[in-house]
């Protein structure tokens, strides 16, 4: 399988007068169908990475290619979900899930004629995440975890080739979060869309991803890559096995080490 996403020497700065360097010398390649996590200290530019890959922002320097094509505008083959479920309160859950279909071509053209078929698709997706009877409810009638499930459905309804998740479970309680890990894993195993999960929860990254990329603090770049050779489907109890714990501990040590190494001089000089 080839790379779906190729980033080479990417730099991103914000602001004109006193530019802040968010990303510098970032290289990243992601294979088609892979489940990848990007972890790093807060403020390392993980969200900037999301914006670059989805074409919402252009890099200041370097190149980004998705499916072999240079990214120079919003990509329709991408689905996104955030920590905040951002469901529209005036729409039912089902209609929220179907929102992308009203925008993305070719569904936009077909939606009116084939509404029944699309509704069925959306309902099937809702059922897959355990929301089969909640399509007609409004988002504010759902709990936080249910809203996040619906948000996941919305990001997948147009069958994107690339799913970008920006700390999607960050605002949930621990039990709900682990439940949703399994929901996401189940979805991924069925459909095998390429997934990039941006998170600061190392256990989450290791539990879900096959490859974990570690980012440095600002300016962010990929400083190391870890493979997670644990078979699927992964189950909650596996998170307590030594091989799992060792990977998490290894990444944690590495991030902590980098921080200590940098902290005395970090303010004075930024590495080029």
């Amino acid at each position, binding site marked *: 399988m080839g790379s779906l996403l190729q980033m080479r020497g990417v730099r991103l700065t914000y602001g004109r007068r006193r530019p802040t360097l968010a990303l510098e010398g970032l290289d990243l390649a992601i294979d088609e169908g892979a489940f990848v996590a990007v972890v790093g200290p807060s403020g390392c530019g993980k969200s900037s990475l999301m*914006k670059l890959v*989805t*074409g*919402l922002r252009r890099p200041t320097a370097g190149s980004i290619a998705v499916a072999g094509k240079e990214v120079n505008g*919003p*990509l*329709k083959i*991408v689905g*996104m979900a*955030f920590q*905040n479920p*951002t469901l*529209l*309160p*005036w729409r039912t859950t089902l209609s929220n899930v179907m*929102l*992308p279909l*009203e*925008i*993305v*071509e070719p569904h936009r053209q077909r939606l009116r004629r084939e509404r029944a078929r699309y509704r069925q698709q959306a309902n099937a997706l809702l059922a897959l995440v355990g929301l089969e009877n909640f399509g007609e*409810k*409004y988002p*504010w*009638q*759902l*709990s*936080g*975890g*249910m809203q996040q499930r619906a948000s996941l459905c*919305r*990001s997948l309804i*147009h069958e994107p080739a690339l799913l970008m998740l920006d700390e999607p479970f960050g605002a949930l309680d621990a039990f*709900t979060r682990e*439940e949703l890990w399994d929901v996401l894993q189940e979805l991924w195993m069925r459909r095998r869309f390429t997934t990039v999960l941006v998170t600061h929860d190392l256990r989450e990254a290791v539990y879900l991803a096959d490859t974990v990329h570690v980012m440095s603090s600002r300016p962010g770049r990929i400083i190391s890559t870890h493979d997670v050779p644990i078979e699927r489907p992964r189950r909650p109890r596996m998170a307590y096995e030594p091989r799992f714990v060792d990977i998490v501990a290894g990444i944690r040590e590495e991030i902590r080490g980098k921080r200590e190494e940098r902290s005395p001089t970090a303010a004075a000089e930024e590495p080029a």
Partner: protein
Amino acid sequence: MRSELLERAVPWIASFALLLLWEIGCTLFNVPEFVLPKPTVVAAALVQWAGPIWFHASHTLVTTILGFAISVVAGVLIGIAVGSSRLAYRGFYPMLVGFNSVPKVAIVPVLVIWFGIGTLPAVLTAFLMSFFPIAVNVATGLATVEPEMEDVLRSLGAKPRDIIVKVGLPRALPYFFASLKVAITLAFVGSVISESIASNRGIGTMMVQASSDFRIALVFAGLIVTAVMGIAMYAGFAMLELRTTRWATRRMDFDADD
């Protein structure tokens, strides 16, 4: 159950209490009728002059609604322009605020010079008084769309127009309806101001004439009719607001477990 009944009755009780206090006060301190007529005298004037009052009040009502209708259309358009574009926001917002700070009484003479005495200046004054809150509220609703929501839609290839139609406008609806309630009462103020300066019909004209004839009871009758019309329109729009934007008020609570 009893508290609900009380809640329904309390606006009436409070209004009645005020009238009662007014009546007793006037009797007790022997206030001359040309300074402050008693509510009973005002009520008598209302009955006695019912015909002319209706003639003028209905005219004011039509004037106000016309001006208000224009301000809804203009306010929404201005609000969309200002709220959906940063550049338009920066360019026009100071102008809007400045314009809104000008006392509208000062504009009426200008309108009279342009359009003559009569209904048109009153309609325009009602419009000028009331479009600002509508524009500001619609703009606020549009400008406060969550950045993540915008990212989701933009990443799907949504055009700015899609975002306004799918997210911005529905989001702005509660703000819009809230502003209508304020705007309609301001529209009344506008039309009555203009009528009392330069018109030969309308409740404002009637009050000015009654005042110069020393028919103070009739002046108060006019004030009360204006207030009642204002309350009625306000209540109408409040009801409309409640019906159209139920999702924003969230009266119902459902149990949801995950």
